[in-house]
């Protein structure tokens, strides 16, 4: 799949490839090829360093973007998969198990969007059912029991708007995961590798260290849905994406996440190895840093981290309120 704004890049690539075919030993063409290659690099840089928030959403959703499996393979020396919620179902939208990352035994889990039509459908395009949230909850409890950190790879459009998911209490299931992550006395590291949609994402990224890939996003609602509710026009998703501040840059600026992981020019799908490598290094570093802390200190720091997030003006601040509202408790 080629995204709209990727067209110029793809055009250059096609012309270069065509010239290579014609070139043989024709030296005149070699020059033209070099010229085009320079133009390609320039176009890549121009386009990919100036992506709009909505374009990043499109990159985050790219079907060829590396998925859970790719990161799992890059991260884990071994991955010992576990299945099921122990209640009656196994949701393939959430995968997890024991793994070893940079010498640390961990519980590794994430949303799995699947890799082809069949697995994409089976995993409901990465939208977990209640059973998936409960599988995650079971893995959190396992991490606590074994005293190993949790590493979560977030990649979901969000919770699923479906009858069964409601009948089986998806809100209750998400809430239970949040409560479990809030108190679990082991380090929790989360990386948003693609889509970070709503409560479905949060159920895996209430964490001690949250990293985001450069072209991932984290949002309370899909930009299309936000546009259709607030602007009453789903087509204004571009604006909504802009307005909600959902990119890694914005979230870092607002003190919500800890780290942005750069993607190769052209996005993770153009050079998966570079992206998975970046995630692996970041996770290892975070685990090493957190492994020095006592469980109580980790839970306390996690409490304080989330407890302070808010953009409210307390009574005292209002009298002589500055032109720029002081974002209560954010940052420092």
């Amino acid at each position, binding site marked *: 799949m080629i995204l709209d704004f990727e067209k110029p890049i793809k055009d250059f690539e096609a012309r270069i490839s065509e010239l290579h075919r014609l070139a043989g030993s024709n030296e005149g063409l070699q020059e033209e090829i070099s010229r085009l290659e320079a133009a390609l690099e320039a176009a890549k840089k121009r386009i990919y360093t100036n992506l709009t928030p909505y374009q990043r959403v499109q990159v985050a959703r790219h079907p060829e973007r590396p998925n859970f499996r790719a990161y799992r393979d890059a991260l884990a020396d071994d991955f010992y998969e576990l299945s099921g919620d122990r209640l009656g179902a196994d949701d393939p939208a959430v995968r997890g198990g024991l793994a070893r990352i940079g010498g640390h035994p961990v519980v590794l889990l994430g949303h799995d969007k699947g890799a082809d039509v069949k697995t994409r459908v089976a995993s409901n395009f990465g939208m977990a059912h209640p059973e998936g949230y409960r599988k995650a909850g079971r893995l959190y409890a396992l991490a606590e029991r074994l005293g190993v950190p949790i590493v979560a790879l977030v990649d979901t459009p969000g*919770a699923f*708007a479906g009858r069964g998911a409601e009948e089986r*209490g998806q809100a209750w299931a998400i*809430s239970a995961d949040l409560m479990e992550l809030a108190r679990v006395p082991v380090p929790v590291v989360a990386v948003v590798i693609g889509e970070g949609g709503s*409560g479905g994402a949060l159920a895996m990224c209430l964490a001690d260290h949250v990293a985001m890939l450069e072209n991932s996003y984290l*949002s309370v609602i899909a930009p299309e849905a*936000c546009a259709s509710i607030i602007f009453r026009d789903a087509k204004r998703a571009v604006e909504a994406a802009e*307005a909600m501040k959902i990119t890694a840059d914005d979230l870092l600026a607002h003190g919500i996440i800890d780290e942005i992981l750069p993607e190769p020019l052209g996005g993770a799908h153009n050079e998966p190895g570079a992206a998975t490598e970046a995630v692996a290094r970041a996770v290892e570093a975070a685990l090493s840093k957190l492994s020095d802390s006592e469980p109580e200190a980790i839970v306390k720091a996690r409490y304080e981290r*989330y407890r302070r997030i808010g953009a*409210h003006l307390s009574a005292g601040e209002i009298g002589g309120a500055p032109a720029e509202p002081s974002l209560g408790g954010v940052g420092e």
Partner: protein
Amino acid sequence: MPDTESGLASTDGVFTKCESCGEPIYEKDLASRFNVCPHCEFHYPLSAPDRVRLLADAGSFQGRDDGMLAGDPMGFEGYEEKLAAARKKTGLDDAVLSGTARIGGHGVAIAAMDFRFIGGSMGSVVGERISRTMEFAYDEGLPLVVVSSSGGARMFEGVYSLMQMAKTSVALSRYMSGSMPYVSILADPTFGGVTASFATAADVVIAEPKARIGFAGARVIESTTKERLPEGFQTAEFQKEHGLVDRIVHRLALKNDLERFLGLLS
């Protein structure tokens, strides 16, 4: 725009018509019954101040954290105007009231949401006041009562609204590490981030009759899945049948129900 608190349009300033049963209702009757239709017992929305009046022993409520106002962290088009209009309409700072009260003589920390204020959406103020209520209850060893009524997250605050789920969860998690009880009361409607965080993680979940409760709304589900939903989908009764709600309690019996519960544990 509805001109009574119940959301019903007044016909002549004295009478209104029940949208559920069609009967004319004397407006003063509706108010004295806390917006429950005297003919069909339909529960209309109840403001946060009236909710407190319904539940708290007379004169026992003491507000906390009043005067806290929403910032506009995203500079979101139209948010300031929405806030100003909601404040004017409701006389509230935001979609929640919080403080302490006595219920049947039992001291509690209490928070009540107000659906009239931008659909009871959870932004930073709601998250902060709910969290402070939990912290206060934890510190003081008080039972916690939260009445929810919310369309979900306040999108205008972008990721801040999402993060209020995390904030209230860490606050609630600490509260739940103590041994005082937490009762969550769900009024029509309760959806989205509120249901998926503090509103369902309670020791006891009470819902008002016919209150609609869920994560995604029925309309969204129907448009996403093209599926016809069954009669009564997501009502309190439906959710109780599905093991997600403990009790369905008529609004006019709610105070007594809480008194019984608190009395059992004291």
